[in-house]
């Protein structure tokens, strides 16, 4: 009998869960992520990707991270190419369907320099949810019969339901060491409100042993307390709050900006020509060269920022 539950409880108990100011810099937050950690990313595909934190982790030369996310887009390329991670657990991994298959993902996985561990989309969600619920697994009716489950071996067990005799798969809990989640707004304590698409973020925050929030803006605790039913992530799960406007660029943040399509087209073209050199050059120009997140945005370009914001804000125009 293993004791992951008692370990989880002990880790949780040791966290400082008071209502306290957690605002810090990107760099200070990056220091909360250790080499070898399992890091879960909030958002999905090109939405609310915690790019500012990923940018900071690449710059800090973090190593050996296991990454998990519902669906992985260009941030997966960046994590592989930078050497920050050689192991990504997700259900789908490429820039996005309009750009075809990620050549960077192909390059690193086909050469076996990195691993893309494939789970079904709902399985990823139920694994985080099991972790959020303090359970060792959740049962499900998906994944059976397929090679996706078979390839995962003992990680996916089966059981016969004692009530109905049905076959069920069991999906083991994920309790990430750290979760990186980008939100439109939160207070200094980490109470976060998330508009629109929620993805798996609430479960990820609840499951993780440490949560770093990046936020488009910090609002007062008073604003949170005026609409407590809009809080999606409670402060006691959160360990760091970093205010980073456009912190998901070049991906989107609901209601604020859409993806920076031009930048993503350029990226796809550059990495399609030569996945390794293309990605390295991209990292050099956009990750290592700029002195700050504002410099990074400046390189993407003011026109691109304004265009993405105009499109993002238009969601309520009609």
């Amino acid at each position: 009998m293993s004791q992951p539950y008692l370990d989880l409880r002990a880790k949780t108990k040791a966290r400082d869960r008071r209502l306290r100011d957690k605002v810090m810099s990107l760099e200070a937050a990056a220091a909360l992520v250790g080499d070898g950690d399992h890091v879960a990313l909030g958002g999905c595909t090109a939405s609310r990707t915690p790019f500012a934190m990923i940018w900071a982790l690449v710059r800090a030369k973090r190593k050996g991270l296991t990454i998990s996310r519902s669906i992985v887009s260009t941030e997966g390329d960046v994590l592989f190419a930078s050497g920050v991670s050689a192991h990504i657990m997700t259900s789908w991994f490429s820039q996005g369907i309009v750009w075809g298959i990620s050549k960077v993902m192909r390059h690193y996985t086909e050469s076996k320099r990195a691993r893309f561990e494939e789970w079904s989309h709902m399985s990823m969600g139920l694994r985080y949810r099991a972790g959020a619920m303090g359970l060792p697994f959740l049962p499900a009716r998906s994944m059976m019969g397929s090679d996706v489950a078979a390839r995962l071996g003992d990680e996916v067990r089966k059981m016969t339901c004692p009530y109905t005799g049905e076959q069920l798969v069991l999906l083991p809990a994920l309790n990430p060491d750290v979760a990186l989640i980008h939100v439109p707004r939160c207070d200094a304590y980490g109470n976060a409100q998330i508009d629109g698409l929620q993805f798996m973020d609430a479960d990820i925050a609840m499951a993780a042993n440490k949560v770093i929030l990046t936020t488009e803006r910090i609002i007062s605790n008073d604003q949170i307390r005026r609409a407590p039913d809009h809080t999606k992530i409670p402060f006691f799960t959160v360990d760091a709050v970093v205010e980073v406007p456009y912190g998901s660029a070049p991906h989107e943040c609901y209601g604020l900006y859409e993806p920076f399509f031009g930048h993503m087209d350029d990226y796809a073209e550059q990495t399609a020509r030569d996945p390794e050199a293309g990605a390295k050059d991209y990292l050099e120009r956009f990750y290592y060269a700029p002195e700050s997140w504002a410099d990074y945005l400046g390189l993407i370009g003011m026109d691109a920022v304004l265009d993405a914001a105009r499109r993002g804000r238009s969601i309520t125009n009609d």
Partner: protein
Amino acid sequence: MTENDGYTASELLAVMSARLLEDGQCVFAGVGIPLLAATLAQRVHAPGLTILFEGGVVGPFVVPGELPPTTNEQRCTRRANMVMGITDVLLLLQRGYVDVGFMGGAQIDRYGNLNSSFIGDPDDPKVRLPGTGGGNDISSLTQMIVAMKHEKRRFVDKVDFITSPGFLAGGTSRGDSGLVTGGMYRVVTDLAVLGFDERTRAMKIAALHPGVTAEEVRDNTGFDLPIEAQAPTTEPPRAEELAALREFDPERLYIA
């Protein structure tokens, strides 16, 4: 199928699969042709069709000219009735609220199993594909419509890897595996509409598109493909269907 017929292969695919959707159904649609076809069905013959996107969206109206790049960006929430978490929207499939799942496919075999994970040996693949996304869950938990280009390299005797289960090894093997509901309903291609034998669960030709012969379909299929007795010929895309499609996708992201 070329522009000479007045429509592209993708347009034909979108139109033919849209027609399979019935008014009143809840359809779980993937991005690309499925999203386009579901939207088309809703505007043309199935106003009571409820579209679900795996990003967590219930009953949106896709805005013409603003097709979302995936089902996980804000564009797919436009004028939706509800937005929920990803896990919760996928659980609607398991709970049984979804009538039909609708997606594209990279590779399919005679029993309707789909592969979107590996070309070649999974341990040493020729191509690492993007993976299942919601595909495995959707095809495990509801009845499926798949839309894809009809090419021999895509219609193979046995997929290299079962990402999304069809009828597995045929017969009762799907149910035996624990998947007690769902299964392949139709595969729509630019050449034909394909169904599955009730008993063997092997693929067969259910209808041919205008000007296409069974021979032509078989030439583009990597396994033996019988044709149903009296398989009809589908009605060509109508002008209103094509006009609606082109209004949705003026940049021809998906219908080129």
